[in-house]
Structures are given as C-alpha cells and as structure tokens.
C-alpha cells in the first residue's frame, strides 16, 4: 500500500470517469424515451450498462491498477454469466413445457 508521502492524487481521472458515466446514464434515459422495440432497447441499454460498470470497476474500484485481480474478477464473472445462461434456457423450457408437453 502507498504511504501518505508516496500517494499520488487521481482526482482528475475520477472526475473524468464520473462525467463519462453520467453521460452514458443520460444516453440510457434518451433511449428509454425515444422508444423502439423491446429487444432493441434492452440490448442497447445493457451494452451501455456494461460500459458503465466496466468504467466503475476499472477506475473507481481500481481494477485497472491490479491486472491479476482484474483477471480473477473477469473469469469469475464470465463463469457466473455462463451458469446463468444455462439456467435461463432451462427456465424457458419449463415455461413452454418442452420437452414434457405435446
């Protein structure tokens, strides 16, 4: 850990990332008001949410400064998403009755 003497302030970088996150959040609201089909809006909003989350993880939570921890988190996240994907498709199978219903 850096001591008080070694510490270099990153306030400028934080403010820049904060401003970018606010702009992306505003874009999500614009998409919501502009309408469009459900899947199209969902995919656009989720892409923006992932970018926001990545910025927060990298710069607010300092993962950009620790590559080992970054890979650890990325691999875990991908594993969870893949596991969810399995559950998601299974849930659809339950709702449609397949493979039991005729």
């Amino acid at each position, binding site marked *: *850990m*850096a001591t*008080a003497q070694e*510490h270099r*302030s*990153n*306030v400028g970088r*934080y*403010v820049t990332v*904060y401003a970018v*996150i*606010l702009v992306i*959040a505003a874009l*999500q*609201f614009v*998409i*919501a*008001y502009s*309408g469009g089909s*459900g899947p199209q*809006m*969902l995919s656009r*909003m*989720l892409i*923006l*949410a992932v970018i*926001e*989350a990545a910025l*927060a*993880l990298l710069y*607010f*939570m300092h993962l950009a400064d*620790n590559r*080992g*921890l970054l890979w*650890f*988190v990325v691999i*875990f*996240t991908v594993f*969870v*998403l893949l596991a*969810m994907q399995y*559950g*998601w498709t299974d*849930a*659809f199978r339950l*709702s449609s009755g397949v493979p039991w219903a005729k």
Partner: protein
Amino acid sequence: MSQAEITMAGHSHLMEKPAFSVPAKKMAMWLFIIADSATFAGCLVAYGFLRNATANWPRPFHSITNVAIMTFILVTSSLTMLFGIDGAKSGDKAKALRWTLITAALGAVFAVLHIREWLALIDEGMTLFKNPWGTSLFGSSFFSITGLHLLHVTGGVVALIAVGLRYRGGRYNADDLEITGLYWHFVDLVWMFVVPLVYLLNLSH
C-alpha cells in the same frame, strides 16, 4: 498496531504472499462483491425471465425524473467516496472524514427518495401481490429487486458512518476506508443494471 500485526511483521518472510498482491481484508471484500453480484444477477435474470414470459407485464412509470435524480445522487456519491479515500491516502484525516460523511448523506438522500417512490406506488394500489395495471408478478419482482438494493444502500450508509468515525478515532486506517469504498462502488454498479431493466424498460409511452 495490533498484536497480530506485530507478529505478522516479525515473521513476514515466513508468511505466504497474499493472492494477487491484495491484502486479505480487501480480498475478502472482493469475494463478497463477487458472491453478491451472483445474487443480484440471479434476481435480474429471474426478473428478465418473468417479464419475457408474462403477457400483461405493466409499464406503470409515466415519469422517470425521480429515478434520474436517484441515479445522479448515487453516481455522485461514488465520486465523493473517492475524494474521501484520496484524502485518507494522502494523510488528510479531516478531508477523508468530511467526504465519507458526505457520501453517507448522499446515500441517505437516495434511500429517502426511494422510499418516497415506493409510497407513491403503494398509494396507487401496488403491493407485493397485486397492482392495478397487470400481472401481480410485477409488484413482487419490483419490490424484491429494489428492496434488496435499498437494503444494501442502507447497510452501506451505516457502514460508512461507522468506519468513518472509527477512522477518525484511529481504530481504522485508510485501507479500511478504501475497502468500505469498494462496497459502496459495488452498490452504485448494481444500480446501473437495475435502472434500465426495472425502470426504463417499464416506461409507459
């Protein structure tokens, strides 16, 4: 310095290096965040499934001004948390405490706005089990997801005040404040997914 830290310092050459060069307390917080992410991901995926599989899903939100203000407050609170940690790292205790308490205050404002929004929806007849617009699943999923998030915000406000005061008293250091900050950023990060899925996609046009 605690007895454990003195012992650790004396025998540091014998100790196993921490994983990813991250101190144990910080690693524990990261593991908690990963586990909690899975909880929220499970809730949001289940919500997506319910929404997709239910024909008469309501879109009750006429205005999203309130949620826009809440988003602004929560993202701003992440920035103020960073100012606090920056102050702590540079050894400026007063600055660190001031910004940490400002962060807690912003969290409290967020919680008040959230509860006000809940009360307005309850006034319109929405509960966990029924609502005047469509499937009752909407109320259960809305209150469950936003309630779980609100619980995290409330816990975070209490933690920020407790850690901030103990930091001022000298019992906690800048690293403890940074670890609490990680939790607070995570709460902000979850909100980035809750807003589009739960609010923006349910905006009435």
